[in-house]
């Protein structure tokens, strides 16, 4: 059996950033396994700009952002296998994969970084009733058809869900000559970035119908239309508002799901809210030596954050392999999503791993709130607090905590991330 120090599963932005950082930190023997035929992941179909403002301080397209990391992988001579599908991860850190040159092979790794990304929620998961014609695509699949294959999936389009990929596709399809009739969003607010709503919908006069959903699909062979209805406060469609909208294409941009089938089979503990592994502040999962980063851990809205998080995972894996700062796993602080918070990453902090000056907690709020304070609290002690004019579930939030303060928390105690209001709700 081939032995490798660090196997990185996935050659998208997360996997590349993690691999590069691990090698920089002294791991000689890194291998990236990628299932597609090139490195770069989903960025390869993102021909629009808006990437890299935080990480590189300049605005890049998805392809350009990916290219910078691909260059790093090449410059650092990090080997990678393309069109290589990982079939299984063992909790003993063996990785079994298959490709067309080596067949099925198993690698024994000292450490593994999970960077498999996520997949899109489908019509089936939403259980939208109606017929089963062609013309219904997840937004990312449509993006692949248009940007990679160079084909148009349709000419009159309704988009369900105002996730970022849906918004981007509304503009892309409009520029290609399709008529995008509307974007329906079940919630009273969009889950997409504000800049995307302005640049992709408002600029092209595409209506965003909040509190609306698709309640039926029509057409026997190709899609012929959808029924759209307004929903009440409980998100139940109001029958009197149902309206038939003729269209030949329905795009779904209704959420992303971290792809953790391999993690589950390896016995890694998953967080039911993020659908990603439970990780500590070093991005280590419940299985020692297996780390997770990027959209496999939780869905990000900015790739810049993915790169930062993945570098942390890469550095932690390097430390683990080299035997530096490996914490006692029993001494943990639980990070809890408190009032108004949907989830946090990390979900726990290992006390002895507090070697860096600060720890960043990433989280999402549960609803749209105005004039609130985001706080990290332990008992009655508020460690840090930030005022915010508006927060939305679509934009990931962070709080940076001083390690010095965290060291004073006893193992077993809870660090609560919460939203504190000055009276006014949303």
């Amino acid at each position, binding site marked *: 059996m081939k032995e490798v120090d660090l196997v990185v599963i996935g050659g998208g932005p997360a996997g590349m950033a993690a691999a590069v950082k691990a090698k920089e930190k002294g791991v000689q023997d890194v291998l990236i396994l990628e299932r597609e035929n090139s490195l770069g992941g989903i960025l390869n179909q993102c021909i629009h700009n808006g990437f890299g403002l935080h990480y590189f301080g300049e605005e890049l397209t998805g392809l350009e952002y990916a290219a910078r990391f691909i260059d790093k992988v090449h410059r650092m001579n990090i080997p990678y296998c393309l069109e290589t599908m990982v079939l299984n991860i063992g909790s003993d850190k063996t990785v079994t994969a298959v490709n067309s040159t080596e067949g*099925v092979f198993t690698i024994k790794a000292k450490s593994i970084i999970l960077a498999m990304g996520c997949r899109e929620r489908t019509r089936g998961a939403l259980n939208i009733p109606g017929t089963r014609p*062609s013309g219904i695509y997840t937004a990312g699949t449509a993006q692949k058809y248009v940007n990679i294959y160079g084909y148009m999936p349709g000419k009159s389009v309704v988009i369900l869900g105002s996730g970022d990929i849906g918004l981007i596709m509304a503009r892309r399809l409009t520029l290609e000559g399709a008529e995008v009739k509307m974007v329906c969003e079940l919630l009273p607010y969009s889950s997409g970035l504000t800049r995307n709503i302005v640049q992709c919908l408002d600029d092209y006069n595409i209506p965003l119908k909040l509190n609306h959903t698709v309640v039926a699909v029509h057409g026997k062979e190709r899609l012929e239309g959808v029924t759209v209805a307004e929903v009440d406060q409980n998100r139940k469609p109001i029958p009197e508002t149902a309206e038939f909208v003729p269209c030949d294409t329905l795009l779904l941009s209704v959420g992303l799901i971290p792809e953790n089938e391999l993690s589950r089979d390896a016995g890694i503990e998953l967080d039911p809210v993020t659908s990603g592994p439970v990780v500590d502040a070093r991005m280590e999962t419940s299985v020692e030596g297996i780390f997770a980063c990027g959209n496999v851990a939780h869905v990000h809205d900015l790739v810049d954050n993915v790169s930062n998080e993945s570098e942390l995972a890469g550095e932690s894996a390097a430390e683990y392999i080299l035997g530096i700062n490996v914490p006692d796993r029993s001494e943990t602080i639980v990070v809890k999503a408190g009032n108004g918070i949907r989830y946090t990453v990390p979900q726990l902090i290992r006390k002895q791993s507090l070697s860096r000056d600060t720890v960043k907690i990433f989280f999402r709020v549960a609803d749209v709130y105005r004039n609130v304070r985001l706080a990290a609290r332990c008992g009655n002690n508020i460690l840090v607090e930030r005022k915010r004019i508006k927060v939305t579930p679509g934009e990931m939030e962070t709080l940076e905590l001083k390690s010095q303060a965290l060291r004073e928390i006893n193992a077993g105690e809870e660090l609560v991330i919460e939203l504190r209001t000055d009276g006014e709700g949303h």
Partner: protein
Amino acid sequence: MYDVVVVGAGVTGAFIARELSKYRLSILVIDKESDVAMGTSKANSAIVHAGYDAVPGTLKALLNIRGNKMMKRISEELDVSFKMTGSLVVCFSKDGIFELEELKIRGFKNGVEDLEIIGADRLREMEPNISPNAVVALYAPSAGIICPYELTLHAMENAVENGAELKLECELSGISYDREVFRLETTKGVIECRYLVNAAGLYSDTVAEMAGDHSFRINPRKGEYVLLDKIYGSFVNRVIFQLPTDKGKGVLVTPTVDGNLLVGPNAEDIDDKTDTSTTSRGLSEVINVARLSVPSLDTRGIITSFAGLRATGSTGDFIIGPSPVNNKLIHAAGIESPGLTAAPAIGEMVADVLKKNGLKLEDKPDYCPYIEKYTPSRKMSESQWNEAVKKDPAHGRIVCRCEKITEADIVASIRRTIGARNVDAVKRRTRAGMGRCQGGFCSPRVVEILSKELGIPFEEVTKSGGKSVFLLKKTK
């Protein structure tokens, strides 16, 4: 001029054709759809019934039992996934035991001799996720689960490999009969034959009427289903029924042979024979009723939903035999549940009816009951898989991540005896796109492979034939 034309390439038509292909006959099967198993055979509960439901003495009872007993051999000959899991009819009140006793007696009369009534403790031991309200159940060890489209496809392929012909996208529009010859008007021209078998499923009354036979009607009865992710595949171990009603066997919860969990169907009499749409009411009904059996059913696990139409005949029983207007026209109609189980036995019975009505059945010595077996890459041992990759690197390229289907598997599904011609046909043959992402990742690749293999542009690749294209034109 064919000896026999079979109208309908569903599971019934396929087994009739397979049975007839044992003899020196020229056989043609026609179907209006772009693939086999496109009607009732593709969307049903996929159950091999034990045979206790049907009224003793009916064809449903007789052929269910026969079909059940044949299924193990058939599944080996035709390389079809089949598991004899057993089934349970659960009851939520002690009084239910009387109805279960009745079912048991009915089963005994039909020839199902191993039925057993079990109490709450044993039930919970067998099915830990069963409702605490379930107090007693009828256990039928001889029930099982099967893949219905694989069964249909492989039976039809075996028939074709033994000399039968198959014409798809061939819709029948008229029948005339003159001097012992049927003239069939179809979208693929006029076809002549001496015997005509009507296995047209939902449309078998229309076919009968074309020949002037108005002796029965077929009423579509819709059933809606939800399918759950494989992580829920062992949520139950057997087929879980509730007490049957006059409309059918009720909502069941069952593992599938591929490891998913299937929940459904409801039963709704409708008018439109093409209406396979799901409804929010129907889907919630299915889930709510299923939760009576298994309260912890997790709807977050749903990966898709679908509806199928049962071909419910006006006589209440299977309609198998010569038409009252012409004894060279043989009906195999009204094949609703337990039709999937009964199909192999229906095949035998129809051959017998043809013989009784003058068709000479002469054994063909080179008939082979076995289909050429194809092992998908994922089911190979590691050494077999490595050998396969050496011979054809496409065995090492996974196209469908969720189900681990390789490029070689997809190419093989297009090149096989009855090759896939569209994306759904590839899906039914390989499972590419059946998984949790529902084709999100693999459908572009499958479109690409179909385009290459069939030598057609991307814009002509369809989801399921007709106008169901994926792509309209090139970008600017």
